[in-house]
């Protein structure tokens, strides 16, 4: 999915927390958004996901505004995902049920994705009994099962153990390579951005200070704020 951000601002209590004149996320790109806390990263992705409204400006998805068809074709995984009060299987099957897909097809697709993500053993477990890493994998499986064209990850691998992080990264990478979806990933982990993303945008104070290929932004930043942030991240 092609994303175009035009003159986007967001103001809370008379304080401008987001101001992006223009930014283009081409279809099939894997964009990493990095930056310090309070840079406006989460606000930006929430607006892209349609969970928040901009104060001014707009976002175009494949050259059109947000509608139910576009909304059904994108998803977002949060740092602390909400899991439905039911089994792991039902959690993952839920987006397919919303799309009126028949039971056999749902069963096949759920079995496939839980097998790929290594959580087949958890399928009958109640969601509230899962560990943080397991819950995050379930949330990712639930997001990927309906093959969204736009996947937004808001620090989806923060606060989980390294083995779960690598398992999730593999699943995300595999999904990207097989489906050519557009992925936007907010992360504090520069190394993770380097491992997964082909483009990186550095945000600071509500603006996109710098963007380019991950090598350009991470190894040859031009802005002083980017240099400082990356230097501190690598320390």
């Amino acid at each position, binding site marked *: 999915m092609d994303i175009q951000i035009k003159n986007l601002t967001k103001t809370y209590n008379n304080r401008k927390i987001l101001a992006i004149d223009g930014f283009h996320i081409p279809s099939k790109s894997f964009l990493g958004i990095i930056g310090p806390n309070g840079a406006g990263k989460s606000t930006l992705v929430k607006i892209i996901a349609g969970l928040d409204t901009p104060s001014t400006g707009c976002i175009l998805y494949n050259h059109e505004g947000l509608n139910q068809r576009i*909304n059904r074709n*994108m998803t977002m995984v949060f740092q602390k995902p909400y899991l*439905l*009060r039911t089994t792991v299987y039902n959690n993952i099957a*839920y987006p397919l049920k*919303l799309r009126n897909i028949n039971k056999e097809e749902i069963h096949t697709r759920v079995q496939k994705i839980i097998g790929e993500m290594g959580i087949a053993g958890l399928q009958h477990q109640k969601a509230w009994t899962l560990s943080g890493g397991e819950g995050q994998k379930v949330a990712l499986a639930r997001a990927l099962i*309906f093959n969204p064209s736009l996947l937004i990850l808001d620090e989806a691998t923060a606060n989980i153990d390294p083995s779960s992080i690598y398992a999730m990264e593999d699943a995300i990478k595999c999904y990207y390579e097989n489906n050519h979806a557009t992925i936007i990933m907010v992360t504090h982990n520069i190394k993770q951005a380097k491992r997964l993303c082909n483009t990186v945008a550095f945000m600071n104070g509500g603006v996109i200070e710098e963007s380019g290929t991950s090598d350009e932004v991470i190894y040859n930043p031009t802005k002083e704020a980017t240099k400082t942030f990356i230097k501190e991240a690598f320390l």
Partner: protein
Amino acid sequence: MREIYEGIIKSIELLLSLDGEIYRIILLSLYVSLTSTLISALIAIPVGIVMGIKKFPFKQGMIRVLYTFMGLPPVIVGLVVYLFIRRSGPLGNLELIFTSAAMIIAQTLLVTPIITGLVYNGTKEGGEKIKNLAKTLGANKTQTMILLIKELRISIFAAMVSGYGRAVSEVGAVMIVGGNIRHHTRVMTTTIAMNHSMGQTDMAIAIGIVLLILSFIVNSLLYRFQQGE
């Protein structure tokens, strides 16, 4: 103590006596309270959820009014309903006064704010996350509302149990609009009040115990339903 003991014995005798009048009183109490709770739930659940997840003008003021209405004195509600439905009132032609329908209306007015307020509080806590999840997974408005009800079912059942408790134990409003007419609008609470005023304490205690047992059974069923996940 002797009166309470006699009341317990009397309540067992009453239940075993298969006296038609007693069973009519019990059934009418259940019918009025459960119907009003159900009608209230149908109104209050969506309203409470929408209030919990939506931002709209005068929301804070509305919440204050809602909290005030949660503690409405039953006699006030009974009086207001009476003024509307009495023969010379604006709704007098509907001939609702001293009927079970009037009692249901009064109890619905009492219970609706309670369920709305409790559902609103439950939604305020977790509703935003559920709404966001539904949206990110492609749910439309109806599917989002269904998901919210499913996920908030514990808060919703707790609210309904509280609402039912209020309805079944209420006496002031049903006395005013129902009139405590024998074989017609007499319910357990009005029977207790009447027997007490007539000095028949053992009978009042007996009906009170039956009321408690029935409350326990209905609440146990609701609790079992709530836990059945």
